């Protein structure tokens, strides 16, 4: 009987070694240690042995069973490992092959700057106001303290639809419309297209401006300086300083032009700033009392400031776009650069 057990054990060992699937293992398990297995058959025969022999054979039989279970388990692990290694081999890739690209579009650089400006000012409590592109003379000139015979009204500078209907030459028109319809406190920005009858390398007949207007009790020139400083640093970076130069605009008093440190050379002087170290960004000033009184706002009680900036110019400075014409050509190779 002992020999029989040894024989079974040897047979099992060699068969298990050869098994190479889970299915094979299951079958072997059933054949050798299952209910109807050879070993179980031998177990039945134990009864025929003498009392003295029984424990020793029982022990050997059990050990054989344990051994076979272990062999099965071991082979099971081996098969799983083999399978895993096969998978690795099968799934191996050339990781340098090109990826699947999802095409994402782009916003126009002007829109990107436009939205950034809106967000900066909205975060500082401004609201966004809108006005028409096609305006009347009152909102574009009269209300902004520009006299009838002012050279700015020349046909050569302004696009006219009718004698007193024109394409706005600046977004300051929206200031007027807001002050007509709302009582102070007013704190708005407005952006949009403006038009001037000129078309050359540095002038586009349509361009974009942003305009801000703040009217309240106690608004000062210092507030204007502050807001410009904050804006410039948020837009161009912490290193960019700004300065005001006295200037003339009919609708502000005092009026100023604003410069920022050249974004290219940081003030050292370069071709962009023509060696001066400064770039002109826009105009600003305290709202002229005449504008207030024309719109029925008490200029003793209220003060205010306004400024206007060229968005196209900001976009060009920010993205280092060398030529204004690129902005309106809509070359996809240009547009795609502004991710």
């Amino acid at each position, binding site marked *: 009987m002992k020999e029989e057990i040894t024989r079974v054990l040897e047979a099992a060992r060699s068969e298990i070694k050869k098994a190479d699937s889970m299915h094979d293992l299951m079958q072997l398990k059933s054949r050798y240690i299952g209910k109807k297995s050879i070993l179980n058959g031998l177990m039945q025969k134990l009864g025929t042995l003498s009392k003295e022999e029984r424990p020793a054979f029982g022990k050997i039989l059990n050990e054989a069973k344990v051994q076979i279970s272990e062999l099965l388990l071991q082979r099971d692990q081996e098969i799983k490992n083999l399978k895993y290694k096969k998978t690795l081999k099968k799934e191996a890739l050339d990781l340098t092959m090109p990826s699947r690209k*999802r095409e994402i*579009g782009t916003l126009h650089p002007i829109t990107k700057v436009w939205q950034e400006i809106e967000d900066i000012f909205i975060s500082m*409590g401004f*609201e966004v106001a809108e006005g*028409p592109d*096609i305006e*009347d003379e009152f909102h574009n000139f009269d209300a902004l303290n520009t006299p009838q015979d002012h050279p700015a009204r020349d046909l050569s500078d302004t696009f006219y639809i009718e004698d007193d209907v024109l394409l706005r030459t600046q977004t300051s028109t929206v200031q007027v419309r807001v002050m007509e319809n709302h009582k102070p406190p*007013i704190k708005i920005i407005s952006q949009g297209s403006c038009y001037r009858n000129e078309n050359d390398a540095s002038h586009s007949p349509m361009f974009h401006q942003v305009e801000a207007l703040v009217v309240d009790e106690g608004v000062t020139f210092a507030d204007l300086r502050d807001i410009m400083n904050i804006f410039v640093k948020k837009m161009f970076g912490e290193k960019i300083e700004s300065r005001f130069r006295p200037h003339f605009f009919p609708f502000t008093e005092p009026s100023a032009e604003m410069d920022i440190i050249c974004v290219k050379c940081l003030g050292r002087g370069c071709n962009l700033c023509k060696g001066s170290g400064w770039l002109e960004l826009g105009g600003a000033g305290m709202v002229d009392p005449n504008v207030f009184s024309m719109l029925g706002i008490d200029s003793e009680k209220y003060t205010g400031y306004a400024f206007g900036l060229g968005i196209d110019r900001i976009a060009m400075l920010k993205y280092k776009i060398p030529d204004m014409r690129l902005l309106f050509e*809509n070359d996809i190779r240009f547009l795609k650069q502004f991710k």
Partner: protein
Amino acid sequence: MKISYKWLSQYIDIDLSPEELQTRMTFAGLEVEGVEKLGEDLNQYIVAEIKKCKTHPGSDHLSICQVNNGSDTKQVICGAPNCAAGQKVAFAPVGVSISDFKIKKVKLRGEESFGMICSEKELGISDNHDGILVLPDDAPIGEKLGTYLQQDDIAFEVEITPNRPDLLGIFGVARDVAAVLNVPLIIPEISIKETGESIAKHLALQNDASELCTRYTARMIKGVTIKESPAWLKQRLISVGLRPINNIVDITNFVMTEFGHPLHAFDHKLIKDKTIIVRRAKKGEKFPALDEQTYTLEKDDLVIADAVKPIALAGIIGGENSHITKETKDIVIEAANFLYSSIRKTAGRLKISTDSSYRFERDIADETAELVSQRACQLILELAGGKLLEGKLDSYPNPVENRIVGLRPSRVKKLLTITVSDKQIINYLEPLGLKLSRRETDLLKFEIPPYRKDLVREIDLIEEIIRLHGYNSVESFLKPQKIMDKTTFYTSRKIKDILVNNGFSEVINWNFGDPSDLNKLNIPTDDERRNNAELKNPLGSSFSIMHSMLIPQLLKNALFNIHHGQKNLKLFEQTKVFTRHNEKLATEKIHLSALITGNLHPVYWKEDQYPADFYDIKGIVEEILNALDISNPVFKVSSEKFYQPGLAVDVFLKERMVGSFGKIDSKIASKYDIEQPLFILDIKLQDIFELQKSVKPVFHDIPKFPPVLRDLSFVISKKYSYNEILNSIYSINKKLITKIELFDEYIGKNIKDGYRSLTFSLVFSSDTKTLTDDNINNILQKVIEKLKNDFNIEMR
């Protein structure tokens, strides 16, 4: 903390309804978190009289009572030993619920019973269950018990912020409320009469831990009678959720709740060697507490001990070995104060939270110890008799001096912007217990009462002023301007983002237009877009109007890029278009046009390239409409003349044409020198904004039950549209068929001419149950029958 409305009214005349009072308290910083109506439970019981009472013939411990409840007489079987004829009792009629138990008509050993005569425990007013509650003879029959016992009250659950320990008692709350309502505070009269020997003869005090016990006072009363508290006292305690025990314990609880400073009473007889020692516990020292637990102490714990053992865990819980019992004759009243951090540490470590520890943990004042000691003695003499010995024991090594805090009225105005006169400031602060001690130019100096440890700096006083003045009485200057149309603003941005995310790049063109483009695009002469704003002095004829549509410019942009070798394009422009007829200025409306041409996706080596088609542009339109929350746009064959006939759709919303999309007619494209297919969408955004304000997303429940998918494949004549098929399927069961996805169309071999084979995936799901095969097969069968009927389909 619970505050009883009636108890509070003892100190102030309140002319407000509980609801109004609740609001005033909340807005003065005493946030009322909950309101409980007391006595409501008791009002289901009725004061009744036992007219007759005889022993139940079938039982020696039951009685048969005839009970008069004011309207009629009911028979009640009662098991209480103390019931007798002539008693006024609390009667629970049939239908009343006592906790979970509902009183029904029952038969007890052959006798019917219509209700129950209740014990105090059953009524929930004490633990007494020895017999029924017997009411005084003058109790009015038929009255609701709650009303009779004056338990009608309102308990406010008030959140006391940690900076205000002075509000841990109802009197403190009353002081604040009085200041808020600007009414006088009624201060209870406290006076005690000392007689006989000095306390020193009977008790000694030794404070060995003055760093942890900042004050300890003891008074002693001899010969008290321990008994039940009178009704008014029990009511007060019940109204704030405390359980009456006996007169002495009840008084200490009452005074604690009144002034927020806890006290403790010891049985003098049980104090070994008649000495109270305040000391740190020994490491490992055992302390048997009143809660029947024995605690093992550490040396940072503070105990009140006698010569041999701890008799109280200071400020937290009394000892089992020294508390007041029925036999107690002589008592010691402790009123003390302990370092709050030490109490917090010990209570936290031992996980004991008592009304006492809750208060001591919040840094109450040393000063109030004397007040509550006197108040407790006064009430004990009144309600328990006995003699108060002369003097008190008092360890108070570092008496606190009253603090002076200065306030600049100019600063008040600067910080709060409110204008209040000096007199008003004084009027606000004095009712809180502050006293004006000195006045200088723009400076008011106030003496701060000891119980307001939180008032240290000028800013603390300013906070009190605004709290009493009212936070919401401060005028606000900034008003919303309502200039900006936020919905339109952000929706416009959202639409741009959708296009960008779908691969479109934004173009910006000059807003000028060329009138000849309108001819090229076959725009009819009477079309709105022909009403152009014309420039008097244009740059040239091709820029002579303000554009009324964006498509011509997009076509030119496409041509420009194709010329530069860029054949796969997705472009859009979103800007104003202009028309003008009989108006002074013009009509300016936000418009969106987009264009796709060439291959839809970038080259990818694993997949074939395929050109963009009608369904691609349709998908973008639907995505935009979806983002605008337009769920049911109507699509009709387009009437625009620049699209290829049959390959374009007009979009209608509320019967207005709001846009179109489709394939540009090749004849038109060739006018722009473009040979490759172009697909366009053209949407009147402004009109859509006007017709439908974008709706915010609203959460819908996530389906709890898994969806079930079934495929359906059939051959159908081409004369039926997809939409017709879809509607036909949905019509069977719109609720359970939640989605229909077309995943294949096949035309060709084995399908006869003029027919196509369609394969759908139907998604079934229910909000209320897991759908069974039977449910679904049933619906599916109906769907198939309907399709056969409507379109004569052939299943595959």
